[in-house]
């Protein structure tokens, strides 16, 4: 049902009903937002990447080859945006030496009511490299197949499997220290 709805809306936007795009944004805002927040680690960057992706989606809507597949197509744009933004984050952080304690204490200031465990998960996720985090999220949170991931990232499946494996090992190591206490 949702896919049919998307197709109709996309065709209406292409026919000139600009304001109909808002319904597509509403439909995918939270779902795509989840990936952006997990990937980029904070809401401000995520919302920026999200807005960027939606605007690009609108501008290149004519190139969405199958209107019914708008959701996955737009997700591909978002994954791409997040990779660019994550690279920028890395460049910013490259200015100073990474110190895990400092970063952890900084994250406490967010003022959100989260248990220490949840905090640890988000913290550990941030410790992964962007490649590993992306692969892990696509595989285990977005539940994509390696074939789908290949299409999205342009990376071959063996390399993606390796990244997912490394990500799991790293998470296990970081969080294992938590659990073993």
């Amino acid at each position, binding site marked *: 049902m949702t896919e049919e709805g998307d197709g109709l809306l996309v065709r209406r*936007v292409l026919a000139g009903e600009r304001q109909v795009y*808002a319904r597509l944004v509403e439909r995918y805002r939270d779902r795509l937002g989840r990936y952006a927040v997990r990937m980029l680690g904070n809401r401000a960057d995520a919302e920026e990447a999200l807005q960027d992706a939606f605007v690009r989606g609108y501008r290149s809507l004519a190139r969405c080859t199958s209107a019914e597949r708008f959701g996955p197509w737009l997700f591909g744009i978002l994954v791409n945006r997040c990779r660019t933004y994550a690279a920028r984050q890395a460049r910013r952080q490259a200015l100073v030496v990474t110190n895990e304690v400092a970063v952890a204490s900084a994250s406490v200031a967010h003022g959100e009511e989260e248990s220490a465990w949840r905090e640890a998960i988000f913290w550990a996720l941030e410790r992964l490299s962007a490649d590993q985090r992306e692969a892990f999220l696509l595989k285990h949170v977005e539940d994509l197949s390696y074939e789908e991931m290949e299409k999205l990232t342009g990376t071959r499946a063996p390399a993606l499997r390796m990244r997912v494996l490394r990500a799991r090992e790293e998470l*296990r190591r970081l*969080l*294992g220290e938590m659990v073993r206490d």
Partner: protein
Amino acid sequence: MTEDDEAFVKVVDVLKEPVRIAPDLTIRVMAEIEQFPVPGAEPTPTPLRFAWARRRLTLRLSPLGALATAAGLAAVVLAGSRIAAPGETSGLQGAGEAAESMRPTQFVLVAPQAASVTVVGDFNDWNPSATPLASANGGGGGVWWVTVPLPPGRYRYAFVVDGTTWLADPEASAVEHEFGRPSSVVTIGGA
């Protein structure tokens, strides 16, 4: 092993939890796409370096601005902020460089009852008729917006609604009071 598997399941459960993105994102997207033609009517896509110039960074969000249906007025200011690409160095900016470092800065106001909205500020000599906002139809009624290219610096501004009512962002953390009326402040990043 079991411990690890349990931990893994827990990790994935947490990461799969839904995330709620503020509804104003829709407003901002719809306001931003107003400047583009209907998709399919555009020529070849803009090269990355120019598309780059259209980045915008959310600076401030008034809680009133979240919903177009909310009574009252609120201001959402989106300012472009440039992050240097690798290889770029920043030097003293002379007048000739200023033009190249202009950032498209988007001013958005949710004002369902307004008949006209303009923005006045340091960048347009505080002229109430120099920079009118356009009314966007998408995402909800009464969304006004305009994009102004600004060189790096700090700018006072305010909205003028229906020619008479002055409005600064009520929650702006950067507000300056002078001449008896408050003005919001937007800071544009440089190289």
